């Protein structure tokens, strides 16, 4: 059985490693030490973990202030509250002020399952993508998560990392080199392209296996950087495979699918299918159950790709 990983572990291991070498690295939390898995960070760097309590607007403002003082704050909170509650602070204090703040939206998507739509973060990509001067990264596995944390620490500027708590397999080889703004080509194919990120990349890879069994060779791109988007990889996929299926743990309005569509329709129009949550609040169910319910599975991606390629010929 494939081993599954919680990307928060890789996030924290890398953060601890970097913090040991760079005293500018600090964390800011909203009583979210446990849910961000920052217990070890607190133990090792107690004065460098700033817990502002349950106060997200202040948390993001404090992050901007710490950056003003020359520090590199990783502001960690559950993604629905970090993004929804503090959106104006993200816009004004971080993105518009161009402060060196790393916003870390933990347990994003529908990871909180049965806790319901208040705790789901399936709007965050749409909200944040609309804000200028903000890099947005959605890592797919532990390897990519660790490299995204390193990149965040080394690059000066506002950044959002979307970190899931759902178990994912390693989808990248050990020698994978993550680069901001570059899609990772995980499987070559000429018949259709599957573009996913985060926890759904592994499902896209499984779907590609199912498609291959039907003689359809699907290209699989991991679009970890939602902003700035790898337009080149998208246009190449459109030109070479003639159709694109996007998959995201997010509403279909304004997220990865929308971002890809914006590039495709204005440059290289090809048929697309956008898989995600179809503009509804999720019913009660576990995270895994909800992914099934909304067809965000290998089978769901397979069906969409089959329909798209069939419709094309």
């Amino acid at each position: 059985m494939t081993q599954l990983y919680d990307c928060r572990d890789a996030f924290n291991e890398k953060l601890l490693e970097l913090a040991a070498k760079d005293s500018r690295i600090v964390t800011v939390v909203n009583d979210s030490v446990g849910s961000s898995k920052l217990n070890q960070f607190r133990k090792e760097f107690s004065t460098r973990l700033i817990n502002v309590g349950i106060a997200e607007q202040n948390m993001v403002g404090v992050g901007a202030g710490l950056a003003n003082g020359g520090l590199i704050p990783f502001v960690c909170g559950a993604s629905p509250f970090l993004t929804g509650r503090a959106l104006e602070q993200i816009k004004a204090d971080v993105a518009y002020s161009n402060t060196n703040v790393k916003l870390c939206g933990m347990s994003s998507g529908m990871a909180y399952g049965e806790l319901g739509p208040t705790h789901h973060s399936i709007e965050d990509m749409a909200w944040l993508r609309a804000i200028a001067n903000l890099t947005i990264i959605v890592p797919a596995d532990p390897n990519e998560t660790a490299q995204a944390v390193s990149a965040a620490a080394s690059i000066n500027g506002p950044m959002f990392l979307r970190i899931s708590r759902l178990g994912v397999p390693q989808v990248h080889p050990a020698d994978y080199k993550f680069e901001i703004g570059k899609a990772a080509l995980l499987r070559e194919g000429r018949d259709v392209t599957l573009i996913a990120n985060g926890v759904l990349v592994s499902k896209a890879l499984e779907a590609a296996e199912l498609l291959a069994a039907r003689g359809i060779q699907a290209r699989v791109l991991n679009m970890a950087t939602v902003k700035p988007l790898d337009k080149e990889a998208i246009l190449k996929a459109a030109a070479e495979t003639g159709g694109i299926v996007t998959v995201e743990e997010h509403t279909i309005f304004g997220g990865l699918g929308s971002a890809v569509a914006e590039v495709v329709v204005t440059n290289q129009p090809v048929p697309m299918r956008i898989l995600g949550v179809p503009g509804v609040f999720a019913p009660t169910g576990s995270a895994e159950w909800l992914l099934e319910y909304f067809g965000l599975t290998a089978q769901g991606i397979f069906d969409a790709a089959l329909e798209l390629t069939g419709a094309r010929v």
Partner: protein
Amino acid sequence: MKIDSNRQEKIAALSRLATKVRRRDMQMIYKAKLGHIGGDFSATDILVTLYSEVLKIDPKAPNAPDRDRFILSKGHCAGALYTTLAFAGFFPEAELDTFVEPLSNLNGHPNRNKVAGVETNTGPLGHGLPVAVGTSIAANLTGLGYRVFVITGDGELQEGSNWEAAMAAAHFKLDNLTVIVDRNRLQQGDGTEQTNQLDPLDDKWRAFGWSVREVDGHDYNNLLDTFAQVPFEPGKPSCIIANTHKGQGVSFMKDNVAWHHKVPNDAEYAAALKELDALDGVAAPKPANEEVEVKVGV
């Protein structure tokens, strides 16, 4: 209280500078046909006192790591800030003529990436204090020991984010942080107390763990004494409630809610200039010990 001659000179200089700032700010707003003159004038005496006598800053090194930080949380009063910064030497006075013109660095609200001396982009209310809390924590963590000063509006304190930050500042014992509340008792549409009551404001800050003093925000002697005493108590952030008058310096603007963002017409501009010219070189008259009469609904 007897004021020594050195202090008297300082007060006279502050008064002259404040009048210069008000006059230049009004010229700028009159030319641009946009601005927030009422709030600019209520904060002017506090701003010139900070920039002349309190802040450890060097306009030639506006990003020096150990500089004191000043944050204008009521970002709509950018006109007063820009004018003060220009006269403090952060950028040439002539640049004030570009205020809100296309592609000007001087937007209607301050932008730290375009204007030297601006620490964070403000405009939406309730943003300055949380950022100041973070910067104050950074001063402690880095050991650079600088101080952080914030001016908030009073109406602005209706934003909950201020109180999140106020709680945190006390919790983290940030005695390097001072907030000055520009207590002019007016907000855009009405009196603060008619809109969403703030009083007893001093008790609110005290209850949040701050050390609080009230000052006359137009009395330089009072302001100088008070700033010299921060932190008021070790281990506590300091709050200065500065009782001010919106539109201070021009009789027909003073305490008049209509002048939140009204732009003077030709006659008003001439009349206001005349009043400001008359103040030049003269210490602002000490307000009599009267209750502020707030004119609303004008």
